[in-house]
């Protein structure tokens, strides 16, 4: 269906051992994510959407199925190879997960120091570029504790982009932020996608955010992909309640955009 997808998940299944017995979180997920897309994963709480996202860099290992990123089968890699593959996959989190004892610039330099690919002057330049991209150059010497939530998440984006990944995974990136900060952060993500061509996969329960941001959305229900569509494409009827809600937000955005054209 999708030519040369950057991510291809095939027949992914995963169950967890819960106190009441085994609970399967994902049962047979097939998903192809196009290169350059902003791909949203929607679903109710506990639908397994975060688990699915964490499979893309194997923070979570599937019980069965294959995870192919950039043409490489990740589940077949050795520990060392997996670490190298992960250097090309950036990730941001709901709780930002910055190192609180490192300055902003040291946080952004963190993956570069791990990988040791750049020498010190080029590393410094790269850190400045990334902080400039998210508009936080003036905070380079601050510590995370001195920043707002939105600023911390932008530092996390700069850190995730430092090693120039082809892919950025976002796990509920706006859930700890207020509405206005969320809008700013979505703009940043959109700019990252447009300027750098980085493919973005985002998990969120914030449907308006997904509708406004994503070029593609998949709805996960009962551990399966219930439907998949483009929020701006109104020509196909939606089969799930979540899908209809998303379509509504997508149309709202469309209305705003075309409205702006008429002015």
């Amino acid at each position, binding site marked *: 269906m999708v030519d040369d997808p950057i991510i291809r998940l095939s027949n992914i299944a995963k169950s967890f051992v819960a106190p009441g017995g085994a609970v399967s979180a994902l049962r047979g997920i097939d998903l192809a994510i196009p290169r350059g897309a902003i791909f949203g994963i929607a679903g109710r709480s506990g639908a397994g959407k975060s688990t699915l996202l964490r499979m893309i860099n194997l923070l979570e290992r599937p019980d069965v199925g294959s995870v192919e990123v950039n043409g490489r089968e990740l589940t077949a890699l050795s520990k060392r190879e997996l670490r190298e593959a*992960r250097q090309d996959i950036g*990730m941001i*989190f709901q709780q930002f997960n910055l190192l*609180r*004892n490192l300055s902003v610039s040291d946080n952004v330099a*963190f993956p570069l120091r*791990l990988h040791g690919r750049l020498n010190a002057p080029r590393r410094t330049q790269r850190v400045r570029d990334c902080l400039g991209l998210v508009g936080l150059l003036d905070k380079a010497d601050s510590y995370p*504790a001195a920043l707002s939530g939105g600023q911390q998440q932008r530092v996390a984006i700069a850190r995730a982009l430092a090693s120039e990944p082809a892919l950025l995974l976002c796990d509920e990136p706006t859930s700890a932020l207020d509405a206005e900060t969320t809008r700013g952060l979505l703009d940043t993500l959109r700019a990252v996608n447009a300027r750098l061509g980085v493919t973005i996969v985002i998990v969120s329960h914030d449907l308006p955010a997904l509708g406004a941001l994503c070029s593609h959305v998949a709805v996960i229900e009962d551990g399966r992909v219930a439907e998949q569509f483009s929020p701006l494409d109104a020509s196909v009827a939606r089969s799930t309640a979540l899908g209809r809600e998303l379509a509504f937000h997508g149309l709202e955005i469309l209305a705003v955009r075309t409205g702006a054209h008429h002015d």
Partner: protein
Amino acid sequence: MIDNLIELLPDLGVALGQTLVMLGIGLGSALLFGGPLGILLFLVGDGQSLHNRFLAATLGWLVNTVRSFPFIILLVALVPFTRIVAGTSIGPLAAAVPLSAAAIPYFARLVEQTLRDVPRGVIEAAHAMGASELQVVTRVLLVEARSSLVLALTVLAVSFLSYSAVAGVVGGGGIGDLAIRYGYYRFETDIMVFTVAVLIALVQMIQLTGTRLARRLDKR
């Protein structure tokens, strides 16, 4: 009373040196062996990246067992081992062996508990960036927990200053021993009060230094 104290000064100097030797070796081996042991205890624990139930249970049992010994019994029980390691069973160097044996598991537990306060998400983020286990330890755990680790070492130093007083039993000497031999056994109350005052000053100094350093290291 002043005469008494002046007479005591040379002895006090020697005792201070002995205390510092015992404390230095004890804390040094705690850092060198107890630190890595504590990190390992943390990493093989429940839900951590090197989780291993067997290793966790074995190490936990070992640490608990050594920590169960009343210090004076450990001191006596280890005499044969001390002879091998220190070449003698008396003196401050000999006393440093059981002190180290007690300090290692003690510090290991403190380190393990301290590392548990590092948010799991930060460790996970490092894994997601391709960090190896060793890099997680050196670049995440030790960085994020550094001020709490300094405080843990401070607690250890204060406890072992008082443990070292018991080392008099094997002729370890030290200030605590001075307090017991002169002050307590010979009923020289002024000397006892004075040596205890020296100990109080030492403890205050250790704690003040530890607290200050921890505060400076903490950017959270």
